[in-house]
């Protein structure tokens, strides 16, 4: 079942006289429970794509449906409403509020949804234990490490059981150990609670954790790779190869 369906999305920046078309007609379909990553050269429009898919930015043309609900025409208020019920976010910079503790940060999305306090506590305990941040719950963001921050941010994305989680280079600021820790947790959660994750990344290692990789070039989908039954290593090699063809630059991995 398709949870996200985007048809012919276009996005351009600038005004009439100075227009830059960043997305030039992208079709993308993500099924429930998929873990998809989007790759492409710097400036190819990945972040832009993620932003429009996640309703943070508006498309210039085209339609996007999440769980069958079209949202391209919605008002800012409806969009916000839509985001808080259906979407979760993990950003490249951890995007935690400095003035809130880990627990308060994680519980933020629940506070708008009128979830009871008891329920909220239960959910927090579950997700925080899974991501290994339960002991940090009363610490402030500047008292914990980058990896822990990113896991906090992931916990916040998962806490309200969103239909889709969007992640923009979630491992960008992490060392390879913390990065693989986080990715393992993400794919675990992806399997365990059948959540759908769409992730933008530069890192072929990160991409190899996914079930599918979409490559973007010049605002269009260049190709897609499915992991299928192959091992992560084999999938990784495929990704490297495609990247090489795509960017013209050989990755030294």
């Amino acid at each position: 079942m398709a949870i996200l369906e985007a048809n012919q999305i276009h996005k351009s920046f600038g005004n009439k006289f100075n227009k830059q078309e960043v997305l030039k007609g992208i079709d993308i379909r993500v099924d429930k429970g998929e873990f998809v990553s989007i790759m492409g050269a710097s400036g190819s429009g990945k972040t832009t794509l993620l932003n429009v898919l996640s309703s943070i930015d508006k498309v210039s043309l085209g339609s996007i449906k999440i769980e069958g609900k079209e949202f391209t025409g919605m008002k800012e208020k409806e969009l916000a409403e839509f985001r808080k019920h259906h979407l979760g976010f993990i950003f490249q910079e951890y995007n935690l509020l400095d003035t809130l503790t880990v627990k308060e940060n994680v519980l933020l999305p629940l506070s708008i949804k009128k979830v009871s306090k008891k329920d909220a506590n239960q959910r927090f305990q579950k997700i925080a234990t899974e991501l290994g941040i339960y002991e940090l719950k009363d610490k402030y963001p500047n008292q914990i490490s980058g990896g822990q921050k990113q896991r906090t941010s992931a916990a916040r994305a998962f806490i309200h059981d969103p239909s889709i989680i969007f992640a923009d280079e979630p491992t960008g600021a992490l060392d390879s150990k913390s990065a693989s820790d986080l990715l393992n947790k993400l794919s675990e959660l992806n399997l365990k609670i059948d959540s759908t994750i769409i992730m933008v990344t530069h890192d072929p290692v990160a991409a190899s954790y996914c079930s599918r990789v979409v490559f973007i070039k010049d605002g269009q989908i260049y190709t897609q790779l499915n992991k299928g039954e192959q091992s992560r290593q084999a999938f990784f090699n495929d990704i490297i190869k495609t990247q090489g063809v795509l960017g013209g630059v050989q990755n030294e991995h």
Partner: protein
Amino acid sequence: MNINYLIYRNLKKNIKNYYLYVFALIFSVGLYFAFVTLQYDPATDEAKGSVKGAAALGAASVLLVAIVAIFLLYANTIFIKRRSKEIGLFQLIGLTKGKIFRILSAENLILYFGSMVIGIFAGFAASRLILMILFKVIGVDAEAALSFSTEALIQTVIVFAVIYVLIMIMNYTFIQRQSILSLFRAVSTTENQIKKMSFLEMLFGLLGIGLILLGYYVSTKLFSGDFTSMNELFMAMILILGSVIIGTYLFYKGSVSFIFNAIRKSKGGYLSVNEVLSLSSIMFRMKSNALLLTIITTVSALAIGLLSLSYISYYSAEKSARQSVPNHFTVANSNDLAAYIQALTDENIEFKQTKRDVIQVNADLSQVIGANLEVVSGPGEQQPMVIPVISDESVEGIDVSPEETLFTGSSDAIQQFMSIQATGDIELTSPNQQIKQQLIGLEKDSYVSYYFASGGLPAAIVDHTVFDKLAQDLDPKIQKETNVYYGIDLVDPIAIDQANQIFKDLGISESTGNLSQSELIMNQKSNMGLMMFIVGFLGLTFLITSGCILYFKQMDEGEEEKANYTILRKLGFTQGNLLKGIQMKQLFNFGIPLIVGLFHSYFAVKSGWFFFGTELWLPMVMVMLLYTALYSIFGLLSVLFYKRIIKEAL
């Protein structure tokens, strides 16, 4: 890209950002210029002369400079800190510190002196209006015409040039002290803001509230007779000031974050947006701004308090004049009286005469006086008091029995000192007899002028039989020159000015005991009017500068927290959600200092208002409402600023 281009670009960007700074600058210059123009203008000689207000105006202008200078310097620290990143960037691309300083100075020079020129024009334009207001409050009938005063111009330019130099020195030391790295870091001050609440802090918080309450408590006791010597009184005042100010500081340092922390703890980590935006952000910031907030609160309290007191006095001028002189005119000397009556008759001014016999009698009031008398009469000398006594026959509508006495015309100040009870036993003493009387009440209206009532003591009304007994047996040592009170009331009050003129022309007003009610009112109004005008001027300047400072702080915070709004909006909070939280935050941010300031001033005014007039509530509440309204404007402005930030956040 040359330096001039950089300066130009910076300037363009900054004018938009700092419009309030520019506004505040224009305003300060305008206000100051208007003030010195008044000070130098011959048109105000009358106002000055009538109250020897020149010295007051001069002192006020010095204070004005102090407020404005502190404000501009403070605002500059905020702005230079905000630009540290930019300065770091300039350094990074290879500009020397000297060059950066020159860019900043040039930019400031244009902004600053541009605003100054505008401010001087605005100030000149406003000074006529201000003069009109001044004339109105002090009751002078004169044409408000002003000429441009070069003296005022020079003084203004010098004062603000000196402030400019100070600002430049500050910028210079700031730039010199910073390395590229620390410049980049200056903005991210969140690091040290987040610390856990300690037990000590909690203690300080409680101590702060305790100290404030102690100060309030002592202030209510200040003039109620518990402090008997001048020395003790002085010590008590110092205690009040000290404990309230230190208490306020601790309140901001500890109590606010303590209370907020307690609320936050009780939520168990589950905060709503409103709480996220208000509680968590204020908690940390109030602490680091404790000193600033204490200063703002204290000076606001001072401004509100002084304004209230002068307005109380202005407002109750008529009432207290009526208490001092119950009729339009009173003439103690019978020759003067005859002359005055003759003059009034000649001018065809109709009038009514009142005549009352007033005798001075020793009275033992120890049973009805609540307070320790040493305050009033000095330690050790508890001699009986001398009070004026009149017969109930001479007062229309009042009749007391031979055992009863009614006190009239007791002033608020005396009442506060002595706290005379409305009923009780008193004793009237003449050389050969002692008459026991029952006090049956205290009335505010007075029936004789204050010439007879020594030091504001009430006048006693007794039955005519008692009065006759006392009058037969007077103690000559304590009698006034005359024992008759003559009051004159005009039938038609319109003629009051004419009657006043005659009163003055005949030279009657010169000798003691001869008083004109309307003269008294006018005197008090013009005294208090000028006071009020000066205090109002300073208060307004202070209000605007402190409002601006709080606003600048909010601008700073808003920009620092912009990233937070981005996150929150991405998570699905609407602009409306966030704005509600911000409104709550501003309610606290501006409301807490205001409310604390209002409370401080309330207790300050309450402790001593009776020296100034007869009416406490109405004038005080009016001053407070006005202050609150003007002050709220800055809260509203900052909400609007946040609105923009939130809108731009996504």
